[in-house]
């Protein structure tokens, strides 16, 4: 029987792209912060991936898929009412907020899952996507740059800012928790 290009195409799609469904969902879930929205984004992204699979010429399918998930998220997001839309991010405004170096700057951080999750979800999107790709997906700077279409220098400074924000937030939480304990 002559090989059917559709079957070959979809078999390769299954082999190359489907194993990264968890990665796609993880990114979508952290971007949307909502189970249903995340499923919608992944559904749409997988459809796009399936449609454009013939334009995927080798390389890392996970990175390719994550870039589609990210683009899908932002394109769907622009269609939602503009109340939460304009979360513009200015790298110059969001400068490093870290406190000045002090010798005893070893902070006590609240590192339980609940606090980490809340702190991550409170990050602005550009910082959140960078830190999720780095820490949860374990992408290299180069891979994050490929997914987000940014320069490696931008990736590096956004990661630094993301961690500084997380640290500030988690320190505050742990301080509040301790203050609460005392009362």
């Amino acid at each position, binding site marked *: 029987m002559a090989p059917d290009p559709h079957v070959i195409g979809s078999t390769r799609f299954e082999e190359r792209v489907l194993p990264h469904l968890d990665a*796609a969902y993880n990114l979508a*879930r952290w971007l949307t912060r909502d*189970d249903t929205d995340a499923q919608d984004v992944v559904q749409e992204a997988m*459809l796009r991936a*399936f449609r454009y699979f013939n334009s995927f010429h080798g390389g890392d399918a996970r990175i390719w898929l994550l870039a589609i998930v990210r683009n899908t998220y932002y394109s769907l997001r622009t269609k939602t009412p503009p109340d939460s839309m304009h979360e513009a991010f200015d790298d110059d405004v969001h400068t490093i907020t870290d406190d000045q170096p002090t*010798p005893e*700057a070893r902070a006590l951080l609240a590192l339980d899952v609940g606090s980490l999750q809340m702190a991550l979800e409170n990050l602005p999107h550009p910082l959140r996507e960078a830190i999720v790709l780095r820490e949860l997906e374990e992408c290299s700077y180069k891979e994050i740059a490929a997914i987000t279409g940014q320069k490696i220098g931008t990736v590096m400074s956004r990661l630094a800012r993301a961690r500084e924000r997380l640290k500030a937030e988690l320190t505050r939480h742990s301080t509040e928790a301790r203050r609460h304990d005392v009362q």
Partner: protein
Amino acid sequence: MMCNDARLLLHAYIDDELDAAQSVAITRHMQGCASCAAQYANYTQLHKALTQPSLYRRAPNALREQWSTAKPAIASPVRVATSRRAPIAFAMAAGFAAAMLLATSLWVYTSSPRSSDTNQLINDAVSSHIRSMQPQHLMDVVSTDQHTVKPWFDGKLDFAPRVKDLASEGFPLVGGRLDALDGHSVAALIYKRRLHVINLYQWPVSSSASPPDTTLWRGYAVIRWTSRDMRYVAVSDVNESELQQFVLAFQDDAATPPMR
């Protein structure tokens, strides 16, 4: 090295993104700078904490099953005995079709396997719908007025599409564009349902009238029908009953003489 440089580079150091010379420079700096060393300890702690498995959100099983049990039915029609998944896909398709037939008797549902021409058309229609959702692709003419949209197609197509505003039924017309489907130039009318978009494609055919035929594919509903020498395909991500409502409204409206 200054503390300001170290503050940025220590993240790249944690991420193992520095070359040997930079790594040496930052370790040297931290040996002599308690503050940066403390920062480094904080961020390492954070870096490790973020590897907790419960922070990683795995795809729900429903989503996984949807994408892994059966190949997209459109692109690869179910074939017997050539694929080890075929029996499962068949069973699912049969169960799905049965459920659909139970749910309604008014609407004709396509049961698998479909002809590859039909699959291709649905496939193209859904993919055209998806493409139309990309920024700047949705509309060539933006108007909620059917008297603006209809003349816009004049001279661009060799037929006059039927254009109806269904705002009173909850499907406002928002515009139109030219598209290609199944090897034809087609008129695409864009309607809204709340925040959802409905694309209605139409082109002339010589075949006889056929009742609406609903197909669901990957979360999109596709309804095809032929009426008065015109082939129609409606695609949307609204649920199927709403799309059926839309089709009924359009047909009802189209039964009256179309304005010219």
